[in-house]
């Protein structure tokens, strides 16, 4: 069923009040009909292959120390398995690394959803942001031009001469290949527990209110009251990284802020009501991507479900959708089983990983004076 965003909101409120026990009413909208397999986008194989090599190449960071894959590791569902991500040397991360599986289908990117355009922009941001890869893209272009393998691959892929614009097209082409595959939910091979979990997901537990669609997210911002990760404020390098980010984002009084304001940066609402909102994450591939939440504060899926069963955390701006659910232990276990059934095959084969060694240095161009730059 396709419903408008407005209708959807109304339905959610109805659903929430039903969950709160204020009224026993059959929701006018049945959730879950748009759950289903993720539809893989088309991609160009030669460009995706080139993007794959770029993704794994540490020479795409300012001091050539880290690649995209340093934090987005295939064996961890393209996350790093840490509560808070690492960062470019000299900085330290203040959020949990999100998975890149299905990222090409998202409506916005980063936990605060600050980019809502396309992966070209996301790639630019990740390459150039001083705490992520700190790369001057003009220097990046000249590095890539110095590697004969890239020169050949660009030509073969119809991309002409290596350029920073080309690089920002090619990495997204590779990201299009990272699509969930063979999850029991998609192949119809869920356990009984998972099937019961799906009922709860779309019904009593109300997860579907935000986690809908093939990727199980509404791509919108919500405050669920996830507690702050104290490590951000006790580790001066993490705190410094956050403060520099907050200053750049125009957060008022950023040196005295002691919480991650999240998607507040969209609108800087004067009443503070959007502080602590974050984009609903996908629920696919969760078995590979612990720990959870935007700041890695919850270590297991059982604990995540327990968190929602308690009505989420404690925050003045918490979304009214969150209310205690009254799920039994068995029901919570069923929900976990359903969540686990949303994870598919690991994307760790050579289709997804660049397995050949990537050089760390550059050959000199022969007869340099006679060659055009």
């Amino acid at each position: 069923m396709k419903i408008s965003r407005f209708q959807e909101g109304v339905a959610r409120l109805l659903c929430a009040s039903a969950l709160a026990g204020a009224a026993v009413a059959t929701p006018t909208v049945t959730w879950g009909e748009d759950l289903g397999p993720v539809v893989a986008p088309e991609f160009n194989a030669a460009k995706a292959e080139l993007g794959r090599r770029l993704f794994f190449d540490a020479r795409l960071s300012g001091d050539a120390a880290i690649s995209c894959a340093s934090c987005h590791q295939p064996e961890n569902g393209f996350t790093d398995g840490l509560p808070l991500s690492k960062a470019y040397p000299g900085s330290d991360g203040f959020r949990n690394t999100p998975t890149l599986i299905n990222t090409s289908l998202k409506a916005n990117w980063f936990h605060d959803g600050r980019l809502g355009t396309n992966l070209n922009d996301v790639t630019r941001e990740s390459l150039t942001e001083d705490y992520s890869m700190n790369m001057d893209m003009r220097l990046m272009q000249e590095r890539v031009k110095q590697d004969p393998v890239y020169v050949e691959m660009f030509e073969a892929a119809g991309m002409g001469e290596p350029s920073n614009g080309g690089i920002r097209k090619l990495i997204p082409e590779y990201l299009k290949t990272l699509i969930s595959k063979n999850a029991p939910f998609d192949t119809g091979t869920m356990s009984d527990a998972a099937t019961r979990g799906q009922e709860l997901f779309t019904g009593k537990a109300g997860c579907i209110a935000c986690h809908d669609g093939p990727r199980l997210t509404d791509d919108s911002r919500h405050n669920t009251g996830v507690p702050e990760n104290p490590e951000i404020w006790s580790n001066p390098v993490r705190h410094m990284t956050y403060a520099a980010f907050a200053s750049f984002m125009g957060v008022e009084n950023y040196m005295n802020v002691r919480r991650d304001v999240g998607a507040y940066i969209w609108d800087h609402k004067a009443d503070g009501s959007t502080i602590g909102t974050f984009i609903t994450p996908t629920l696919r591939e969760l078995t590979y991507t612990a720990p959870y939440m935007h700041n890695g504060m919850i270590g297991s899926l059982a604990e995540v479900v327990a968190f929602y069963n308690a009505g989420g955390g404690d925050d003045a701006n918490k979304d009214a959708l969150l209310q205690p659910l009254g799920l039994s232990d068995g029901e919570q276990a069923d929900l976990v089983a359903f969540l686990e059934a949303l994870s598919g095959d690991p994307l760790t084969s050579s289709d997804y990983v660049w397995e050949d060694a990537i050089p760390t240095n550059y050959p000199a161009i022969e007869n340099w004076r006679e060659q055009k730059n």
Partner: protein
Amino acid sequence: MKQINTFSLLASGAVVSMAIAGAVGLTAPALAGDMAYPALEALGQPPIPSDNQMTEAKIELGKMLFWDPRLGGDASTACVTCHEPDQGWAFSDSLSRGYPGTVHWRNSQSVINSAYLGQLFWAGSAKSLEKQAPSAAKGAVAGNGENDVMETRLAFIPEYRERFNDVFGTEWPRIGDAWAAIAAFERTLVVNDTPVDRYLNGETDALNEQQLAGMELFNGKAGCIQCHNGPQATDENYYNLGVPPAERWEEDGLAQITFRYEIYAKGVTQEMYRELKDDPGLYFRTKEADHLGKFRTPPLRYTAYTAPYMHNGTFWDLEEVVRFYNDGGGENDFTDGTFASTKTPKLQPLGLTDGEIGDLVAFLEAFSGDEVTVEAPALPPYAALPSQ
């Protein structure tokens, strides 16, 4: 947060003409021909800008910051990284060290006596030490830092919070004040008591016979005074001497990357991006063909410690430099008409004997004085901020 700086085309032409105008009219020893140049003079005290007065506390803070690698992108690269006290406050390789993963593209210049210069960097792109420091800390092949991160790092170092508050009165350290403090420290790195300075101050036995013979050549037959004149031994004007292109550009992949990066980042025509194989120097700032391959005359004090020489470190000792001038300079891509022919007519073969070359080198060595050594400061640690 990385921003691409828009290249400024301002002022360089005016500065050049002012420098020339300033040279005319001063009484000075006459050279062959009718031109007069400012005489070498003993070096006095450096000028102190009225908006950045020197205090002990500011100098001490600037010294710490000069050594602090947290004023760079990945917290590995400080001012001192390319301006090493035991390498003449420069870097003893043809091209400077560069940020990790890169090599720089020009020779690192000494910080000693930079306080006197109005044109900093080889093409004069900064007009004050306060402007030079951030430019070096931020360039992708130098410090690769960003203002917001560098400034915020300082805020998480309690000792810096105290010191910045003491010196500048701010609650939190400000990055512009960091550059001011570094500039103040650099203004203490002065060598103005070389044997040549003492001689020019009337201490007639400060130079030996050979050095005096070298000085006479410098002012006369060798014509060095044409550009290396006045108290600083530089006219701060721009010339193409025909210094050959850097050899490393032909041999070193990393250097080739940086060369292309610079011509891309600094902005040239598409045709020039494809064709250039030599450093256009002042042209980057003015985009005037007359300025291709021109670099600012460097000062000469302390040069005994700062090998190798020239904007790309082509010459490894002073004798090589003198022999280069004795040959009337050299050839590069901006002397042979490939792009332009901008070589200065001031350079002509000099006909110096080996003995005269030795005399000139002896004079230059007497222009260097004692080595400036400084004990590296201890750097204060980060600490968490109090919770709110």
